[in-house]
């Protein structure tokens, strides 16, 4: 089952596009089917965003946990995805 990456965004968040682009490109470095991503509109899913502790846009959750607040660098994101894969193997 693929690990979910969720990018918390809103219509007015111009910086979020950069994060979405980064994630959609970066997961291509991994074998297909290991990750899938979705954009979460915080206004539409406010309760869920609050549950995870989201405070600002963009934020990124991996495997149902908030991992980044703000735009992550490519290497930070790659490390986080690899860590998730290792944890899933254990």
């Amino acid at each position: 089952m693929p690990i979910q990456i969720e990018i918390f965004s809103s219509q007015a968040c111009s910086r979020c596009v950069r994060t979405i682009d980064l994630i959609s490109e970066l997961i291509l470095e991994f074998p297909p089917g290991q990750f899938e991503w979705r954009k979460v509109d915080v206004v539409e899913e406010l309760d869920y965003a609050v549950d995870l502790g989201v405070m600002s846009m963009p934020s990124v959750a991996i495997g149902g946990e908030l991992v980044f607040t703000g735009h992550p660098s490519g290497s930070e994101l790659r490390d986080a995805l690899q860590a998730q894969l290792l944890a899933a193997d254990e």
Partner: protein
Amino acid sequence: MSRGAGNSYRIGQVSEMVGISADTLRYYEKIELLQNVNRSDSGIRLYSDKDISRLRFIQRAQKMQFRLKEIAALLSMREDPQQARAEVRLRTQTKLDEIEGSLRDLKRLHHELQLLLNLCKGSEDGCPIIEGIDRDV
């Protein structure tokens, strides 16, 4: 007006200090929420710092929607926690649980409003706060 090691205050002063009317202060004494309020030789009520502290406690408890009867039980616990009856202890525990529930709700509401405000700050057109509120109406 000074009395012993502590301070003492007349009813008008207390009313001004804590924002409770003189009539209500007299009523609290009548129903024994305030006990043993000192009197001067001429019979004027003289409230101590401890009385003020009790009044502030009553105010806080009222803000939490506690009834006066419940507050009276909490005050007896506050006065002498070691000697409090089992029933009073249980009631205090129940109230503590209620407060913790309210704190959780408040914390969540705080988080939600902070998130919406942050969204608003980052928004060039329109404010998602309005959309978020509309969603629940």
